[in-house]
């Protein structure tokens, strides 16, 4: 084990080259609905138990299944109302299990990115070859079912290895060149996109995804009341919008429809979306669009600036 994977260099938030989003927007705002499949009886993993109780894990499994049976359509209708296209963090086996959901997303022109095969298959303990095979399977599955060349990655259940980002970028290049494998949502170190160091030196960025705004972290881990969650979303936006007049920021709301689409949580979520999209200088966008725009306009300057700031000050 290493002290640090050196995925990115220290790069202070102040005095960076300024970002301006399309149309002069101050903030890039994206919503990332996780569309996941949890297995009732997954193989065991020595490092992390999929379910806390002996299978069948009826409480945990059925709670997740609510998102697929009931929740996704609710959020699709809500996001459409506010002109938001989702960027789907996809358990790619769901393409085979529930193609109806994929079809709905495609009709809305949503983006799909890889979230592994199942959310009950952790990366922990995989060899590099096994992880590469899993990632390749997920990118190929997305292409087969959606015709999209998967741009982004969020490791299944946020389970990583030392090679996860390298592998994702490399498999993306193998399959589709620079059209696939260009951004990650796995890192929470910044409120702006940042270049990521890979062994292949591929141009690759981290796009802010935010654990703090994640509904499951808010509701399940932090046990926040729904109206407070709505307020937190607004407060997060206000600060990033204000700072965005200096240099463009990114706000993401990662969601899970077994949480956010419960009837008692939709009101505060809708109020937050109405508030955010009601501002004039907001670029309502997707993960891929942010990554591509940044790679095209800001990545090279960022690399130069990071190198300059790594020089010890005399």
């Amino acid at each position, binding site marked *: 084990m290493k002290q640090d994977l050196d995925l990115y260099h220290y790069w202070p938030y102040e005095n960076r080259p300024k970002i301006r989003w399309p149309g002069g927007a101050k903030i890039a705002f994206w919503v990332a609905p996780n569309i996941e499949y949890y297995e009732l009886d997954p193989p065991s993993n020595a490092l992390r138990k999929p379910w806390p109780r002996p299978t069948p894990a009826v*409480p945990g499994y059925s709670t997740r299944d609510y998102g697929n049976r009931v929740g*996704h359509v609710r959020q699709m209708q809500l996001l459409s109302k506010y002109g938001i296209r989702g960027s789907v963090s996809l358990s790619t086996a769901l393409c085979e299990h529930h193609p109806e959901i994929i079809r709905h997303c495609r009709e809305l022109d949503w983006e799909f990115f890889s979230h592994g095969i199942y959310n009950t298959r952790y990366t922990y303990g*995989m060899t590099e070859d096994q992880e590469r095979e899993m990632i390749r399977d997920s990118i190929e599955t997305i292409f087969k079912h959606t015709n999209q060349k998967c741009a982004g990655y969020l490791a299944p259940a946020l389970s990583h290895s030392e090679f996860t980002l390298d592998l994702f970028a490399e498999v993306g290049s193998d399959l589709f060149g620079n059209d696939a494998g260009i951004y990650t949502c796995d890192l929470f170190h910044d409120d702006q996109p940042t270049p990521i160091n890979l062994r292949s030196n591929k141009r690759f960025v981290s796009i802010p995804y935010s654990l703090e705004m994640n509904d499951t972290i808010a509701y399940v881990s932090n046990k926040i009341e729904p109206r407070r969650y709505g307020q937190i979303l607004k407060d997060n936006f206000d600060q990033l919008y204000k700072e965005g007049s200096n240099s463009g920021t990114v706000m993401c709301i990662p969601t899970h429809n077994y949480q956010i689409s419960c009837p008692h949580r939709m009101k505060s979520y809708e109020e937050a979306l109405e508030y955010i999209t009601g501002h004039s200088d907001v670029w309502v966008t997707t993960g891929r669009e942010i990554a591509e725009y940044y790679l095209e306009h800001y990545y090279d300057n960022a690399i130069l600036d990071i190198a300059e700031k790594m020089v010890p000050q005399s």
Partner: protein
Amino acid sequence: MSADKNFLKYPHRSYGMDHSLYKWSMLDDRPGIQWPNGKKLALWININLQFFPLNQQDKPFPVPAGMTMPYPDLRHYTLRDYGNRVGIYRFFNALDKYGITSSIAMNTLVAQRYPYLLRKVIERGHEIICHGYHMDALHYGGQSLEEETDLVNMALDELRKLSGQPIKGWISPAKNESHSTPQLLAENGIEYFCDWVNDDMPYEFFTNAGTLIAMPLSTELEDKFILMDNLHSELSYKEQIIDACNYLLDEASNKGGRILALNLHPWLLGQPHRIQILDQLLEYLSSQTDIWSASPSDIISVFNSQS
């Protein structure tokens, strides 16, 4: 180190579910259900009457809301028993004040131990659901079939004998099951059960002994989940129910009837400082003209007639 060779094999990766317990279907794609008299939202209140034994075994996991202190944990034992002695009578008054019906999910041991309470429940005309034998009599994966068969038989036979009701419904303690539970329930004359929280409407659940109805009894909207597990305020609990009610009423306007299922615990919401919240909620709900106060059997009978 290499992960198990099964870790990259996906034997159930195909259309539908990764099991054959029920059919894959999205609520939004199903035909709408019409409740009687054009009502939009069925209000199903379920009240739990529970017995938490002092000599808790915790097999195979700690009993939710059970004993946590060294034996004899009188603090939790008596606090839970409070619901059966005091809280439930406050609940009865609140229900009567607003003319709202409820089902009552009862551990069979409660019926055995408290005949006065059982008689009261019967006289008041509540539909009784079997809530297992007691809160520490868990159903779980790895349990021997013989042990679980005896447990289901004992719980249902005894509750039917004592109550004189047919007992068609079931909620497992901790809403936990073994792989055999649904089949054992079907073999024992159960028609609906409420452990699976994956839908907002009833659906068919298959067993080798026949089909059950899975009834949607939300855990996320439970008083215990919101107030005790999440430590939200009483005011927030009330807001969450009202927000859910309004959302479902709105959805029902164009998608067909919906159900607002409130699972309640008299040992929690029946406390003096919380009972007014129940009163306020029932006042709000009963003032909605599009709400139908219904028992689970009422709901299932409409559901079956339209499915």
